[in-house]
């Protein structure tokens, strides 16, 4: 019996394609449930597989073994064309941001909404709202290449949130932020969760590890994901 809502990893294994079977797995027997309305934080050393886990949850990679279920559907088993369509429910913040530098800030926010058949007026509303939340309203027409690292990261988060996705997956979303903006991003993600989204964050950031906005904390080490039942971790 699978969870009917949220994201669920079931005996999830992952090894990079082409690697020898004797080599250790990146993820091994990962069991986790990320429920709607909560912000989950995954911590772990560099190279421990946090980003890989997010890419698996986002349907960008397929597990070597095991399954990922989303709202009761085995999405990791689906054919590519169905997973492509399902990905419209996902908003992902890449560690490398993956913005398109020659586009303006507003145009970068427009990209995820085009295939969703949303009306122009609603697109504009959502873009304006996200620009305000990300403190980028004055830069809507600026090329992305002209932004600072922190501004780009906030734009990347805004792009993940602009289409109000069901699943929000953020990789190091506060890495380039000052305390004020890091707290603001925490609140943004918390608000999204309170509206029913499943929020999974991978981060080293001590500010997030100690944040009240985080509901559940996981730690990834030696390819295994464990939940820290103690809740808030000390800085």
């Amino acid at each position, binding site marked *: 019996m699978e969870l009917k809502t949220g994201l669920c990893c079931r005996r999830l294994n992952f090894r990079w394609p082409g690697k020898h079977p004797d080599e250790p797995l990146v993820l091994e027997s990962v069991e986790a449930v990320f429920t709607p309305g909560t912000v989950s934080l995954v911590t772990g050393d560099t190279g421990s597989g946090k980003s890989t886990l997010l890419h698996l949850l986002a349907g*960008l990679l397929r597990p070597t073994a095991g399954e990922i279920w989303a709202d009761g559907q085995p999405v990791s088993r689906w054919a590519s*064309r169905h997973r492509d369509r399902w*990905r419209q429910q996902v908003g992902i913040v*890449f560690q490398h941001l993956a913005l398109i530098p020659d586009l303006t800030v507003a*145009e970068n926010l427009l990209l995820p909404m*085009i295939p969703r058949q949303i009306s122009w007026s609603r697109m504009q509303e959502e873009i304006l709202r996200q620009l305000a939340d990300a403190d980028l309203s004055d830069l809507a027409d600026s090329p992305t290449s002209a932004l600072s690292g922190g501004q780009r990261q906030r734009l990347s988060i805004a792009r993940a949130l602009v289409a109000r996705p069901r699943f929000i997956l953020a990789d190091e979303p506060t890495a380039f932020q000052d305390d004020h903006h890091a707290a603001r991003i925490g609140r943004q993600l918390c608000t999204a969760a309170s509206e029913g989204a499943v929020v999974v964050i991978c981060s080293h950031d001590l500010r997030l590890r100690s944040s009240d906005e985080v509901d559940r904390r996981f730690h990834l080490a030696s390819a295994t994901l464990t939940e820290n039942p103690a809740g808030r971790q000390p800085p």
Partner: protein
Amino acid sequence: MIPGFQYPPMAIWAARDIQRHRGRSMLLFASLASLVFLTAVALLFSQALDATWARLMDQAPDLVVRRIDAGGWAPLPVDDALACTKNIPGVLDPTPRLWGVVPGPDGPVTVVASIAVVPGNVLDGIPPPSAGQAVVGQGVARALSNSRLSLGGRNPATVNVIGTFPADTGLATHDLVWMTPDDARGLLGLTPGQASDLAIHLFRREEEQAIQTDLAAAFPWPVSITDRSTSALRHHTRAVRSGGIAVVAGIPALLALLLIITGTVVDTTGQRSHWGLLKSMGWTTTDILRLQIVQATIVGIPAVVMGLASAYAVVFYPPAAGVTAFWITGGQHLPAMTLVSTGAAMTMLEIAAMVGLPFLAAVFLTSLRAAAGSPWTMLQADPWN
């Protein structure tokens, strides 16, 4: 409607993407327009040549009878020939004609004395020559240094040129010299009462093949009979060949070029990583294909229209038309082309389909190959990794 145009944001984004890659879009536009232009010039020219000849032939006689003997063409006794045709049903208005080929200053020229030799509309508005005078075609006039034209023949003569035939009748009058019957007879060595041939119109044009047997049997001497269909077919074949050779020789090479350019423009590493990003944000392979088709349409339709319009201009509007005729025929003088709108429209539609459909297919297949991959793999090709 093309998928994607039904949803304005997709079409608007496609236009923005074209604007982002101006250089690539211009290259594609120029390749497509050039391909359409080259193809359209060859085919429109061929079609126009055919139509022009058909127009000129429309007033030509249905049958032309010439007497022949062991030495070739022989003079035709006018009264005897007319008497022979009198009792053949369906023969209308047999007209003896005076004409022949004689040496001119710059090669052979065709001497005519009777207006029945050339279609009546060609001679409209041109005053007929008097004794010792001539009206000449553009090809003959070009060879003259003054108004005097010296011609060879049985009895060489020099005539005074008083005018030239219009350039747009060149297909029929290029090497023509029109003079009085007496002057022509002198040059051609014909006596009064003799003609070069007999032009015949028929009551029913469709009978031109059937009636030839009766005509040949009616004359007491061997005759050669030429019908309009055979003559028209000869020119039609030439017209089709001139277009056909251009198509057969040029189009495969140009299409290959188009496919290479399309592949180069559509499937680049940067493009693939960009599509990987789009897929990570919820775009499907179908959405990306739709975007590419819309972009191809936005670039392709104006390119095809421009190629067709340019080709139309250089075939039908002088002086560009003269340059085109020189280019295609290798210097042969041709008249201004006649436009048959239905024929030209069909040719243009054929060309648009011949170039547009392979282009769209190339865009579709190249995009499908590049966009159908795993988004993670596509993202790895990017400049941000």
